[in-house]
């Protein structure tokens, strides 16, 4: 194959009375394209038909008027978008903005907590003999293979009004009697952190395993304290993994549905539950769709920031295909 790329070095002066364009090349390209379509075509078509197209429809519904049964109706309007921003016939209300901000905050703090928990675990695993590492990593991942509902349910058991943890909080005076640690913001935070911890550990581990220890050795002579050594020689090298981890935790946590509905309760509404309610309970599809548009804007913004930052770091994260 190198012949192919080397051939590019042939100067045009060498090209005299030979055919102008590569007809064979065009035929080969057509044959490749045809084979690409019969192999990858069905799968790509499937995804477009059952996800890309439905998502477009969903987003489009955000620009429709609401019909009698909560269904989308002509004419096109910006009312649902305005409603999401808080404007209604009753004036402006901050409820939706609060919900979006609360969800963002929950997602960001869940990412932060997983980072705090993940670093010691990752370096603990790295410090073990290579043969042992996959097993230790597996033990971090295993719980996430159980269904999310089961994992969240486990915390209902732990944080409910009758649980030992709630009793402890009640005796310490942190919690009024007969109430549990659940439902509430704290329970939701714990649930999100627990659910998404492995999504932080795995990319961080991948980055830490490739760590260039010679840099650490060199830094050992330069920096007196271990903490400074970590911040200047180790931490920067784990940044690509950390970035992926933040994306993998924050994006699903932001739009999570199970944790807010099981652990959050009615008072601390989150955007995921709010959107779902527009389709499952009080049907108002245009409003729900408009909320979805906002959610996707935040998601895309997050991905964009991630791309820009990882490009700046020179990492090839996410460029596999």
């Amino acid at each position, binding site marked *: 194959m190198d012949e192919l790329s080397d051939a590019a070095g042939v100067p045009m002066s060498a*090209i*005299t009375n030979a055919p102008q364009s590569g007809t064979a090349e065009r035929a*080969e390209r057509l044959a490749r394209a045809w084979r690409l379509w019969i192999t990858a075509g069905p799968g790509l078509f499937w995804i477009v038909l059952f996800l890309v197209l439905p998502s477009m429809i969903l987003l489009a519904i955000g620009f429709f008027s609401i019909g009698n049964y909560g269904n989308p109706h002509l004419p096109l309007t910006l009312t649902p978008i305005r409603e999401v921003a808080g404007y209604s016939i009753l004036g402006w209300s901050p409820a939706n903005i609060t919900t979006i901000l609360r969800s963002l905050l929950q997602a960001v703090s869940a990412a932060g907590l997983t980072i705090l928990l993940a670093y010691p675990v990752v370096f603990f695993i790295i410090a073990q003999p290579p043969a042992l590492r996959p097993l230790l990593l597996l033990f971090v991942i295993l719980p996430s293979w159980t269904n999310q509902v089961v994992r969240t349910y486990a915390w209902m058991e732990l944080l409910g009004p009758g649980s030992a943890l709630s009793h402890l909080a009640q005796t310490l005076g942190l919690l009024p009697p007969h109430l549990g640690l659940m439902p509430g913001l704290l329970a939701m935070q714990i649930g999100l952190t627990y659910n998404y911890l492995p999504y932080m550990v795995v990319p961080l581990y991948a980055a830490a395993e490739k760590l260039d220890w010679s840099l650490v050795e060199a830094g050992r002579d330069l920096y007196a304290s271990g903490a400074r050594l970590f911040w200047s020689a180790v931490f920067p090298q784990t940044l690509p993994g950390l970035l992926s981890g933040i994306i993998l935790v924050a994006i699903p946590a932001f739009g999570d549905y199970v944790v807010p509905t099981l652990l959050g309760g009615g008072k601390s509404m989150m955007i995921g539950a709010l959107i779902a309610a527009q389709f499952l309970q009080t049907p108002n599809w245009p409003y729900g769709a408009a909320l979805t548009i906002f959610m996707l804007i935040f998601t895309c913004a997050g991905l964009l920031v991630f791309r820009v930052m990882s490009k700046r770091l020179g990492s090839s994260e996410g460029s596999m295909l």
Partner: protein
Amino acid sequence: MSGRLPGSLNAFIAEPVPATITGNRAQHLPMSAPVAAAPNGSIRGAIALEGISRVFGGGVIAVDQINLTIQPGEFFTLLGPSGCGKTTLLRMIAGFETPDAGRILISGREMQNVPAHLRAVNTVFQSYALFPHLSVAENIEFGLRMRRIARPERKLRVDRIMALLQIDAFARRNPAQLSGGQRQRVALARALVNEPDVVLLDEPLSALDAKLRAELQVELMRMQKRLGMTFVFVTHDQHEALVMSDRIAVMERGRLLQVGPVLDVYEQPRSVFVAEFLGQSNIWKFATHAGNVAQTPIGNLVVGAPIGTQRTAMIRPEKIWLYPEAEAPGDRPNLFPGTVREAIYQGASTHYHVELADGAMILALDTNNQAAERSWGPGEKLVLELKPGNIMLIDG
């Protein structure tokens, strides 16, 4: 791995040659096989390229209007620097690429539009490309299986070729468990077992160390002569080309510069590029001449033949005679005194970089048949004789 010629091959040479290997060649590819067999035996294995061109994206011409005929049973080498188009040419014969223009005839049949799997041609790849999920024996059997040859015959032919190449000991192993040299033999066996009209070899020895490469060069050559198949060999290694080939073609920038028997191409290069690519050489351009005396930068040079339109003189380093200053024959033409600037001892021979009186450098080679008495160190003076008969004239 033993570098000696396999004992079984010696035994094989002594025996009558089995029909399936070199016998009635027209029957090699059974009618059930979807492979275009030669119409008659006489031109089986012949290759004719007529005006073959291939253009890559961006208008880059990889192969430019090549005409070439390769005889049945010939060991033919395409030699050139990387990027000269030799691999593209080989891939077009194999059927992995289609030419933009021209005809490819294999065993007298037009093949340029026939897909690779219908050509009676097999390739030995540079990377060997052994199938990782199959054992050695299964790898070799693959082609026969695809052609739906009956199992007993398959086994017979696989066993025979494995014995011939001395790889029967690891028939059950996986390619990953083999050394480089063993893989190379398996790749060769996988091609030969099909008894193709033509075997194509794309730098098959380049991944091996020097000693093993030298052994396999000889073995490959003997194998080819024994089986009588046409081998088309691609390499950028001029030494390899010299050792193995009946004829070679030197390629550059998609064109054939010179085609001929090894000796002709080496002794009578028709261009500066060929002279420099194949072996070492001293080359001088000259603008004027008088009779058979060329007026070159190093002085007047008497050449063996009358000068026509040629304007370049060339002499190989090993064809220069060296004399100690005192022993120089005074009465002959083309004597150049000089000072050794560098002496590179290479065991069998020594390379001398000699500076002539006017500062020009010349490369000379002396065989070390009497190294103890006759050698020069840097700074020492000697006299070079460029015998007129050893000087070649080149166009351009």
